[in-house]
């Protein structure tokens, strides 16, 4: 720890003893400790990188000494690693530092050999303090030609779309605009104005791809079609239609998160985000910033919502990758960092992380995916006013709460609107600070309950530029005094203050009369809140700095006149692309193939992740992520009891099936949604109450003959996926409560010979589902409960091995991708819901990736009992082989166990639906399966299955 402050020896001794040294377990010294080593590696943060322990150290020092450190003083943490190994070289140590201990994007390191080490000065004093020595300056930007503005865009990394440039120029060259600007002392646009426009127009903020016009051409049928605006047609339209039909849908499509009715006094809210680009460069920092960031969305929904739970989805390259490509971070290291980031972000926020998934695929080597989902709850009313509604009005004060503004996070949104390359600015990588945010969360909820909040939104992508820009639309204008914004350090330009994405900040509108109360409450919670402006109805976004205007633009500039993006989309059917079913004769050793599939990375146990996530803080846990006799098998969904004195619950699940996109993203989408829905049905949810969140992550779809030759195909996959989403939502009746898209999931990776390769991710959709559970005491888990119980499979097993785990195991793709017959499936789902309601079911588990064989194993491992299974009894269509029966991934299916006394009532309920009793739960330690021809094909102890399933990652903690 490096203390850069004028403290006396006595003060230093106090803090050493009272704060920084545990007398029972630790030693400390102001001199370098005398430790035996051959090498010392010192690792510290780079200047300006968020140092959370450093800042809590300042708080503690100030507290115990009763003083305030000056703005030039600070505390910085770093680590000294002592390495023994005399044969090691500086080169080795550099590798250890760079590839294991530090990430050069946020950290710096120094290596000392025993010989170089000076026992009295040690590493020397390194103070990573930001010294900018810069006078804030507003620069004007010439708009004399498209070319010059384009050049500025490239130079400043604005990522302006070439088609937007004439529109921007036209505005600033307009006579009336010029006259108005002249009056406030402006002529050509300022850098802060152009930055504001660039942020707001970025694909990240404005969803230009989803709002684009797609020229879709089906090469199979020759049919051409123009799809104008995927968002409007496939997401907004069905959701509005369903909102009309479902009174429980409270608020969708406008706020930071969507809201549904929990009970008459509460609304739940949900949203999902991705944080791919930053995580790809600095896994820990990116992921913690991602989860802490998504937690600000519910907090900024309505007049503010309390956080209830979080979910995660990680997609990375092969964990044991040993090939020649050199990603910035090896997938193993990247995954470790991402896991830890979400751990600290969730645990330190006091929000349970109740559900999540990990997918390994080579396509994510280029850019990893980090999905984070947040669920919150708000009272239906505050002081008799609807809590889900909010607006800003003229004269309301603009207040910034939480963290301070620094250079970090500048151009995050524009960077994530690009393919990753070595030129991507590193400055946008941050480290989230859940502690600061937790204080702010507690403060804002108390302020909300006192009726002090008129409007609240988070500062995420785009910083103040987005949050103030968007909130000022309600009042239709604002005046911002930029010099009032509290900074981490001096010397930021005005535009930097405006677009910085420094974390843990919210923008709040309050009545000026409430200011004193608000600030007092803020102080009690040790949260910084600052008035930075006033909302107006001037129709202008007006920003001043020390009294001088530096931005003055029409509030409606962003909504008017920008051209729609255009995409060519060309669909080639899988058969036309050369896909076919492999010629594969049935295996004879089913025991070993089942064990090997259970041990595949995308199937095997990932208990080590669940265990390091606090999944039961808040005391609400009903169905945990891991359940069963040994509490180690994944449940279908998680259920929480968010209102402690109510027996109602919220069920949550999500699904990811990207591999099906190798055949057709349409079926990838239908199967993903069906799985996410089935997961909720399995624990006891009712299809009527299910809402969804769509998170698209797609590779670049803009065709380019050299750089993106298959862009048209990827665009067609996106169109098909959106159409599937629309169809599924309407058939199942699932309103999309929230959703986001993240495009450009591609990366250019250096290879062995200095060449580089573009790696694109699979077209990926994470679909999250949420539902109110009317009585949690009736929830069902997936583990078999008792020997003698009957085992049923609901739904039909078809010859659908295309894209399956089984085919992937052999290196095949296949053609027969599973298809969803939603109309038929939903009848079965509603009967199952009724059966759970009537409490005649002992366990329910969906059949997902890996098929029947894998999921029978899950039910057996969960219960700790054996089973006797006869595949001949299975309800099938076009299936006459054991491998198809065991490993087909047909959608719409469940494994159900039922106590014998409930046999007849169960069978009666399902009489008109495809289902079959295929066996029973036994006392024996083995899973025994008879094949379609009545011959025993498999007999494996449950313990062997579990050993195989836990083997790959079982030793990780």
């Amino acid at each position, binding site marked *: 720890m490096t203390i850069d402050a004028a403290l006396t020896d006595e003060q230093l001794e106090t803090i050493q003893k009272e704060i920084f040294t545990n007398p*029972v377990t630790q030693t400390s010294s102001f001199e370098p400790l005398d430790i035996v080593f051959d090498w010392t590696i010192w690792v510290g943060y780079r200047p300006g990188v968020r140092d*959370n322990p450093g800042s*809590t150290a300042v708080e503690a020092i100030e507290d115990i000494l009763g003083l305030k450190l000056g703005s030039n003083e600070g505390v910085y943490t770093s680590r000294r690693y002592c390495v023994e190994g005399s044969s090691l070289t500086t080169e080795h140590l550099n590798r250890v530092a760079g590839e294991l201990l530090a990430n050069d994007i946020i950290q710096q390191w120094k290596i000392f050999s025993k010989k170089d080490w000076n026992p009295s000065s040690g590493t020397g004093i390194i103070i990573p303090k930001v010294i900018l020595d810069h006078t804030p300056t507003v620069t004007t930007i010439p708009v004399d030609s498209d070319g010059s503005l384009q050049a500025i865009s490239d130079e400043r990394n604005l990522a302006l779309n070439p088609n937007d440039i004439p529109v921007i120029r036209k505005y600033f060259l307009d006579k009336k605009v010029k006259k108005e600007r002249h009056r406030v002392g402006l002529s050509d646009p300022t850098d802060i104005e152009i930055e504001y426009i660039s942020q707001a127009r970025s694909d990240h903020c404005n969803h230009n791809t989803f709002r684009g016009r797609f020229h879709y051409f089906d090469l199979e049928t020759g049919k051409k079609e123009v799809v104008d605006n995927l968002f409007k047609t496939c997401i907004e339209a069905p959701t509005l239609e369903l909102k009309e039909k479902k009174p429980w849908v409270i608020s969708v499509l406008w706020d930071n998160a969507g809201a549904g009715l929990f009970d008459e006094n509460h609304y739940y809210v949900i949203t999902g985000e991705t944080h791919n680009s930053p995580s790809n460069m600095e896994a820990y920092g990116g992921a913690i910033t991602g989860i802490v960031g998504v937690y600000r969305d519910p907090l900024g929904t309505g007049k503010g919502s309390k956080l209830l739970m979080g979910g995660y989805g990680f997609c990375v390259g092969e964990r044991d990758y040993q090939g020649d490509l050199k990603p910035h971070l090896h997938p193993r290291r990247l995954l470790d960092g991402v896991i830890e980031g979400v751990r600290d972000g969730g645990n330190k926020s006091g929000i349970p992380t109740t559900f999540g998934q990990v997918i390994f695929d080579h396509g994510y080597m280029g850019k990893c995916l980090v999905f984070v989902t947040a669920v919150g709850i708000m009272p239906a009313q505050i002081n008799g006013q609807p809590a889900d509604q909010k607006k800003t009005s003229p004269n309301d004060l603009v207040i910034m709460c939480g963290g301070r503004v620094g250079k970090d996070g500048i151009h995050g949104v524009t960077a994530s609107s690009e393919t990753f390359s070595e030129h991507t600015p590193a400055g946008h990588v941050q480290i989230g600070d859940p502690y600061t945010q937790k*204080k702010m969360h*507690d403060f804002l909820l108390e302020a909300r309950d006192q009726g002090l909040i008129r409007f609240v939104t988070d500062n995420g992508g785009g910083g103040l530029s987005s949050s103030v820009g968007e909130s000022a639309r309600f009042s239709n204008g604002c005046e911002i005094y930029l010099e009032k914004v509290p900074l981490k350090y001096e010397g930021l330009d005005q535009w930097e203050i405006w677009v910085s994405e420094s974390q843990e900040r919210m923008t709040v509108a309050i009545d000026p009369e409430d200011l004193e109360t608000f600030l007092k409450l803020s102080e*009690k919670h040790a949260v910084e809140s600052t008035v930075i402006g006033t909302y107006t109805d001037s129709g202008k976004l007006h920003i001043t700095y020390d009294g001088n205007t530096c931005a003055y633009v029409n509030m409606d500039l962003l909504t008017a006149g920008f051209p729609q993006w255009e995409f060519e989309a060309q669909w080639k059917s899988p058969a036309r692309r050369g896909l076919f079913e492999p010629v594969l004769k049935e295996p004879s050793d089913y025991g070993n193939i089942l064990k090997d599939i259970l041990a595949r990375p995308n199937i095997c146990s990932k208990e080590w992740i669940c265990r390091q996530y606090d999944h039961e803080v808040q*005391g609400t846990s009903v169905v945990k992520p891991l359940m069963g006799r040994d509490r180690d098998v994944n449940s279908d969904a998680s259920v929480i009891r968010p209102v402690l004195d109510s027996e109602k619950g919220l069920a949550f699940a999500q699904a990811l099936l990207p591999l099906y996109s190798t055949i057709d993203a349409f079926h990838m989408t239908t199967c993903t949604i069906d799985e996410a829905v089935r997961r909720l049905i399995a624990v006891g949810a009712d299809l009527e109450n299910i809402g969804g969140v769509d998170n698209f992550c797609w590779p670049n779809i803009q065709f380019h003959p050299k750089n993106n030759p298959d862009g048209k195909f990827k665009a067609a996959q996106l169109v098909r996926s959106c159409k599937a989403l629309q169809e599924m939502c309407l058939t199942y009746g699932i309103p999309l409560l929230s959703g986001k898209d993240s495009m450009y999931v591609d990366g250019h990776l250096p290879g062995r010979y200095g060449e580089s390769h573009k790696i694109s991710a699979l077209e990926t959709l994470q679909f999250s589902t949420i539902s109110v559970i009317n009585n949690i005491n009736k929830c069902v888990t997936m*583990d078999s*409960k*008792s020997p003698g119980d009957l085992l049923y499979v609901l739904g039909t097993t078809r010859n659908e091995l295309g894209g399956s785990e089984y085919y992937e195991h052999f290196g095949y793709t296949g053609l027969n991708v599973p298809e969803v017959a939603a109309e038929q499936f939903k009848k079965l789902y509603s009967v199952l819901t009724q059966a759970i309601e009537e409490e005649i079911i002992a366990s329910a588990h969906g059949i997902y990736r890996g098929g029947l064989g894998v999921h029978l194993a899950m039910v057996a491992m969960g219960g700790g009992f054996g089973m006797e299974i006869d595949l001949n009894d299975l309800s099938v269509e076009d299936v006459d082989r054991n491998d198809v029966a065991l490993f087909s991934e047909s959608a719409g299916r469940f494994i159900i166990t039922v106590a014998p006394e409930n046999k007849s009532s169960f069978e009666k309920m399902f009489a008109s639906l495809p289902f079959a009793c295929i066996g029973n739960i036994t006392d024996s330690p083995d899973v025994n399966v008879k094949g379609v021809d009545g011959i025993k094909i498999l007999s494996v102890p449950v313990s062997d299955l579990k050993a195989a399933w836990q083997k790959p990652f079982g030793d990780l903690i």
Partner: protein
Amino acid sequence: MSRVNVLVLAGYGLNCDYETAYAFELAGAKSTRVHINALIDGSVQLDDFQILVFGGGFSWGDDHGAGVVQAVRFKTYLGDTILEFIDKGNLVLGICNGFQTLVNLGLLPGIDQDYKSRTIALTFNDCGNFQDRWVSLKTNTNSPCVFTKGFDQLESSVEFPVRHGEGKFYAEQGVLKRLQNDNQIALQYALPDGGLAQGQFPYNPNGSMEDIAGICDPTGRVFGLMPHPEAYNHPTNHPDWTRVREQMKRQEKLLDSGPTAGVRLFKNGVDFVK
């Protein structure tokens, strides 16, 4: 007597305040969530309460040893107030981060009336990471601990979840001996069959010496534990609840709707004050 008043601390990164307050309500108390600063600035008086709870969470981010900075703040602003509170016969409970805070304040172990020295530590788990899992606990029937009274009478062994990265109990042998001799070790990590975990992971989830999960001061009125009783405030919190329900159903019985072991722990405290 009027209802027992419980003060549950909140703020600065604490995060189990809602459910802890709720569990105390179920136990018959009136509980209030109070921001640490409201206690310091005097807008809330400790004198109005009989039970003070340092709950779970990450106070000050736990960046400098779990509970350390929270302890510093209390010591600086409220040191003697808490000692007087204890002297009056009131109860202090520390759960997880709260236990870590009590240890850093020196309120535990309180050997020889010394409520100021740090003589024990809760340090990083041996397994090297944060762990969320349910553990079985063995109760010391001879312990003066107010909160665990009668736990040995429960039908099955007591189980609560642990959720921490720094829960390994560490003390010098001399201190450890005193704790044993004076029955200050109230709760220990156990095997599912009731025997002591004897350091075996994951039954002892953090490598605690002597499988220590919770200790009290010699009066039994100051108690700290790593497991979270407040997270077992409803039968459905228990990881086996659907399995137990199914067994009960087959015996034509209902799931036990009486207070959970978690609520009983709080009720012991409330009943003591009554």
